[in-house]
């Protein structure tokens, strides 16, 4: 089944409460996905010339201090590391691609959840409510966020298989549904240089979008192409550095509700996840039309 949520803040005054609202939304979707949960939060952009990379270790006893020293040796004294249980957010004075390559070569035991300038992705196996507490999600401020509660149908229940999936810089995707042509498409995308970390179908959707964006598509164009290329059932919510988008497949089996006020735009698998947002009583509320792309971008309202 799975539950997905997304919140895009339009009024800067609300940015401080992003995590609080995301937590409520995600907790409300626990019934739809009790196996695992995850969130992507766009906040606190790094300085120019720096990269932000979120990594995931096998356990909470990972020697982060050693990693921190190695990073400082490799990239200079400005390398910073913030540990969140088995995750760490690295801020490095280097190109994101170089940091990713260095990690792959020197620390293949770490999973790279996300890379870019603003994105941070956290995920965990088990109850979404525990996940929200463990990562103190309610305390995050930021501009936009996506969340996912998973009821696995297609691949294993592990932290790595949890959403959101990110395969491009500052890009991530959460998915409710299942894709049927992901194996063939994954092969094609690997040939084009897209790296995959799991056998999960949703990661392929994220990889496809990353590839289209590399090829010069806008996010909307990439989604138009995805409608043509991806076979299966899906509601996707997608985040980029400054954008947020939602699309439902042409058959339209998977649920989604959207709402918008002057202050925010939100989507969720069910209305109850949106019901606690401030001003929802006066929000425009609608169900996305199948195969229609809804998108928001910062600075364009």
């Amino acid at each position, binding site marked *: 089944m799975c539950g997905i949520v997304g919140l895009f803040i339009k009024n800067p005054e609300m940015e401080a409460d992003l995590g609080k609202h995301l937590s409520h939304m995600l907790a409300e979707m626990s019934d739809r996905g009790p196996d695992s949960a995850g969130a992507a939060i766009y906040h606190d952009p790094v300085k120019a010339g720096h990269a932000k990379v979120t990594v995931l270790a096998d356990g909470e006893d990972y020697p982060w201090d050693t990693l921190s020293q190695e990073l400082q040796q490799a990239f200079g004294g400005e390398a910073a590391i913030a540990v969140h249980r088995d995750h760490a957010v690295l801020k490095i004075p280097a190109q994101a691609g170089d940091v990713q390559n260095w990690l792959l070569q020197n620390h293949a035991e770490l999973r790279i959840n996300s890379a870019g300038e603003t994105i941070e992705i956290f995920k965990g196996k088990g109850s979404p409510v525990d996940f929200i507490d463990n990562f103190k999600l309610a305390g995050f401020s930021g501009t936009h966020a996506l969340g996912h509660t998973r009821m696995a149908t297609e691949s294993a229940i592990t932290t790595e298989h949890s959403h959101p999936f990110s395969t491009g810089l500052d890009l991530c995707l959460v998915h409710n549904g299942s894709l049927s042509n992901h194996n063939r498409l994954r092969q094609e995308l690997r040939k084009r240089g897209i790296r995959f970390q799991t056998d999960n179908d949703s990661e392929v959707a994220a990889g496809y979008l990353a590839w289209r964006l590399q090829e010069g598509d806008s996010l909307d164009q990439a989604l138009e192409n995805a409608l043509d290329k991806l076979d299966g059932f899906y509601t996707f919510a997608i985040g980029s550095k400054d954008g947020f988008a939602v699309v439902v497949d042409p058959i*339209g089996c998977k*649920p989604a*509700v959207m709402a918008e006020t002057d202050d925010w735009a939100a989507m969720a698998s*069910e*209305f*109850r*996840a*949106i*019901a*606690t947002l401030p001003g929802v009583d006066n929000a425009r*509320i*609608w*169900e996305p*039309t*199948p195969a229609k792309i809804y998108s928001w971008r910062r600075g364009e309202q």
Partner: protein
Amino acid sequence: MITFDLKNNKVRNLNQSLHDSSSDNADFLVTNPNGKHSVAVAAMYATNITIDGHVGYYCAGMNQQAAVTVKGNAGSGLAENMMSGSVRVTGNASQYCAATAHGGMVVIEGDTAARCGISMKGVDIVVGGSVGHMSAFMAQSGRFVICGDAGDALGDSLYEARIYVGGEVKSLGADCIEKPMLAEHQAELKSLLKLAGMGAVDSSTFKRYGSQRKLYHFNIDHAGEY
């Protein structure tokens, strides 16, 4: 008037009261539904149930006799398998509204998503706005009025339900055809609109759709396709 505030009372308690014969003819007000599922399911008596806000899935399913009003939007599966009574939604309804419903009337003042009236078995449905794709799929009997537009594949594999559409039909499903609008159909449409509280809608431009009845029997000419 019996009030259930779903902020601090359970949906199950509400539904139990609706099954309880001592509540016959009582009026219910349900507040703070906040998108909860299964609100006012299987009401069994002639009560008035007003739900003040948006509801989640399966609201008013299996309804008998009760008149349910949702002042807001409804999620998937509204009035599924309803037997009698009425359900009114002042906003929009999500997918497969009034699926397999046997009787009574469902009124949606706004739009519905895909598959409205799928496999309807005798219910009357009146939608003030538009309906999504595959609406009235395998509809068996009952009347279905759409004041706005219909999405793709309206009435696919239709049996005997009668469909009236005021706006545009994006496409008709297999075996669904436009049929002549006779005086008896115009009268039926008018009475349905009036019952739905939409008597002011101009019914003169509506078109009627129904089954071509070509799928009823095995066609020997198609034997090679199996």
